[in-house]
């Protein structure tokens, strides 16, 4: 069983407890404006071009058989509509400026790479986290990885937007030690505007997981202009105040902005400033008011 991933990040410390390996699955069914991993959106390979690394040697242009590459004033221009993603240009790029995002890989190979760090997981209480992208969009692949990890006693976590059929969740419940699920906003219309989908199914699935005694962390990315009001956070608190879950507020940042340009994508949050630490602290106090437990406060 193989699947498409972007990367396996060793020593991930923001995706669950302890030292973890985060496997980023490629392909997502949402298009959140603030996403900092746009390279995980497509269910296909993507060509990334990092201008700062480019030596202007033009070897890639010479190599491209369909003339999808050309020079421009400051580097290389990619005619993405023509590009067949053959990857030949990346093979001759000496500096790594052109890279193909995406790796088709067997579940066994994922686990082989991850298990080199079992010793770190043991010492730190860490494990593997399947992230993305949306891991549940590659259900069989995800299931296989999780099964293999469970067999090796590796702690498993999954980061999901929950915009999937409940059957998919049910299939994974016995294999996941920790669910990290986004609750972005309670309001369906706002949710649809900024992610492309409404949130009824998400909230229903969220409750379904909790009702099945799963360990859950509800994560709320706090985005200026989208959900950074007291009212919005309060409404989330009201949803979860009596549920056995922990919560995290994740402050909006701009670290992924460069990737949009590198992938030829439009950044709808362009110009938006990171959420200040002060504002995040103010909003976190609301959770305390509702007596809701939070996990590491610095995220």
């Amino acid at each position, binding site marked *: 069983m193989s699947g498409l991933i972007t990367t396996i990040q060793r020593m991930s410390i923001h995706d669950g407890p302890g030292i973890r390996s985060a496997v980023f699955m490629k392909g997502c069914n949402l298009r959140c404006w603030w996403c900092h991993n746009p390279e995980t959106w497509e269910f296909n390979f993507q060509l990334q071009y990092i201008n700062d690394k480019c030596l202007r*040697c033009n070897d890639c242009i010479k190599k491209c058989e369909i003339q999808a590459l050309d020079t421009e004033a400051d580097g290389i221009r990619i005619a993405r509509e023509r590009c067949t993603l053959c990857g030949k240009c990346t093979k001759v790029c000496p500096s790594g400026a052109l890279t193909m995002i995406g790796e088709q890989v067997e579940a066994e190979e994922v686990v082989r790479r991850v298990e080199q760090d079992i010793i770190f997981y043991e010492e730190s209480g860490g494990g593997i986290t399947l992230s993305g992208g949306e891991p549940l969009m590659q259900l069989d692949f995800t299931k296989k990885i999780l099964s293999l990890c469970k067999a090796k006693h590796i702690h498993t976590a999954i980061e999901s937007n929950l915009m999937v059929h409940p059957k998919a969740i049910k299939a994974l419940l016995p294999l996941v030690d920790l669910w990290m699920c986004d609750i972005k906003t309670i309001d369906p219309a706002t949710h649809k505007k900024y992610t492309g989908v409404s949130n009824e199914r998400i909230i229903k699935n969220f409750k379904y997981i909790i009702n099945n005694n799963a360990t859950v962390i509800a994560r709320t990315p706090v985005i200026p202009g989208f959900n950074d009001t007291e009212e919005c956070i309060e409404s989330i608190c009201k949803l979860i105040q009596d549920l056995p879950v922990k919560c995290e507020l994740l402050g909006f940042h701009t670290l992924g902005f460069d990737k949009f340009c590198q992938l030829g994508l439009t950044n709808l949050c362009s110009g938006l400033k990171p959420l200040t630490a002060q504002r995040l602290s103010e909003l976190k106090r609301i959770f305390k008011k509702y007596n809701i437990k939070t996990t590491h406060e610095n995220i």
Partner: protein
Amino acid sequence: MKTFDEKLASLRKLKLAQTQEKIALEGLLDEDDYGRIVPPKGFWKIIPNHQDGSFYGFDAWANNFCDLMEKHPVYVNSDDAFAGRWMYFMSKMRPNKWNPEYPYDHLKPDIKKYDIICGIGDDAHFAPDYEMGVQLGWGGLLDKIEHYRSINTSPAQQHFYDLHIKVIKGIQGWIRRHIEKANEMAMHESNSERKQNLLDIAQTNQNILVDAPKTLREACQWIIWFHLASRTYNRDGAGGQLDSLLLPFYEHDIAENNIDDFTTIYYLGCFLINDPVYWQIGGPDKNGKDQTSKISFLLLEAADKINTSLNITVRVHDGINPELLDRSVYYLVKNKNAWPRFSGDKALVKGFMSNGFSVELARQRIAVGCNWMSLPGLEYTMNDLVKVNMAKVFEVAYYEMIAQPDSEYSTGKLWKLFEMHLTKAVEVAAAGIRHHLKYQKYNEPELLLNLLSHGPIEKGLDVSDGGAQYYNLAIDGAGLAIVADSFAALEQRIETEHLLDWDEMTTQLKADFKTTNGQKIQAICRNSERYGATDSLGEKWGEQIRDIFTDLVCKQSNPALKQVFIPGFFSWANTVGFGLSVGATPNGRNAKTPISHGANPNPGFIIEGASLSLATTIAKMQPAKGNTAPMQWELDPTFAKEENVNLIKAIIKTHFRMGGTLINVNIMDKKKILEAHKDPSKYPELVVRVTGFTAYFAMLSPQFRQLVVDRILES
């Protein structure tokens, strides 16, 4: 009235001023701070006994040292609990460090060819037994010498003892002058508290002038005198198991109600600020029992209060007191000042035992030097003194192959040549050590370290000349990542991918990549599968280099002479100097730029998860014979926060579980280090762990600062 904290703060401020004065008057120095202060100009000069202007042999060393002891300025500060500072690098004041009567011209061509730091004429770098010192005191040491003087009666032995007696009396004279000075200062001091402290300093020193120390203050002062004298003699900076060493005195004072923990922390703060000697805390005793005690924690608290360029190592073993490790990492993260560092008991003990030693002895071999372990008082080691520049050996092999017909070019052929030249280089390094052992007593006897060693006084022989119980001799390899990455780049880019050919590579190396397409070729080389990345070609070659180097060094051992040669990977501050002698290398490194550090990968070896890759790779690359291949860890300050102490601890413990031996850590904000590099005077308190040692960043030369900056920026 000043509180203890105020006194320590005042001493810390003075220490920074002294460091600034050192930089202003003596210039920059790519070395440890040593706690040394600037002597008055032209105050003391060496007394040569050779036409080359240097001095050699027993008499000359004793004469020079005792003359200096007689004249050395005294140092008493009314805020300090202890008297004394050292000022003179006596051994470095000689124009020549090796007695020309014992030439090694036969080795010099190969030493140069392979850029070997041969260690001939180098000194110290093994550990004294301070426990013996505080048990006997100066009077007890004199009695011990007299005892063996009556047994070993040859003229040479009698002379040997005479000179050691002379040395001790010289030190006692130095101490006596401090007693006089403290009394004199007390007489003129109007502040009653300061007056009392000065009188206490005088009395403490009077009590240990002959007798062994009885109190914590006396024990600390006695240790200070020995290391000040030994530093002055030949820069020796080895310490010992400090918590166990001081524990009986602390317990005695507590039982007698002489001190409380506030006073203890003040004493320990004054003790630690005196000199950044390498001390170990925690770790097992010879029976495996954890040595952590109350005073281990008090030492950390005292270190936190002075927060200077400290060289405290915490020994991590299975039975470590978990709270000690917690506190150690907490202080590392809190101060971000590169202390403490951590040594890994499991692999060190197992490795040392593989040379045929017992587990009890292996546990006593503790972290008391830059990269090194030593059995206090039991062995002579030449630790951190002998290094083979493997990048240079690689270069010799490469150009030898290139001089042959091109049908012969391959990484297989190059490896054979590398192996052949590395064999020769290690043989030459070992021959240099043997030459040193044979003649060092005629060059620079260890008149100070002999006193706290078990054997030299008993046998009437210098520690370098059969006096020691064990000769566990270190040879370190340097430039591992440069060589591994170079082999990997050649295999991948020439042999597998055919992106380059051998002629093109040689052209680029000779031109230092400064050709029309040089930048492109250099990028191709630099982006090959690098050492440090999992399952990479670089790692494969690294393992081959580890195995051959380990094997070659171990083969130099000679059981008949009780000489055990022990390999390690370490380059100390020689990364710059070694780099200067090596042209461009196939890994894309430019000519004359620094070589890689110890067993560390080249900076920028991986984009994500660098800490785990580093910890995994370096654990894997250990020669595993009891010496170290340290992990030089540039820790990102965004990670190195209090809430992540448990994760940092987990990496430390895991590295040691996997076979790691020593971890040196820097936690440096990238912006801050760049600003400090631009104007070091703005950051006089900034401490970095350059290699095994810490240094004030402002004291480093611009070139060396650049090296540290590069490492941190690319971490």
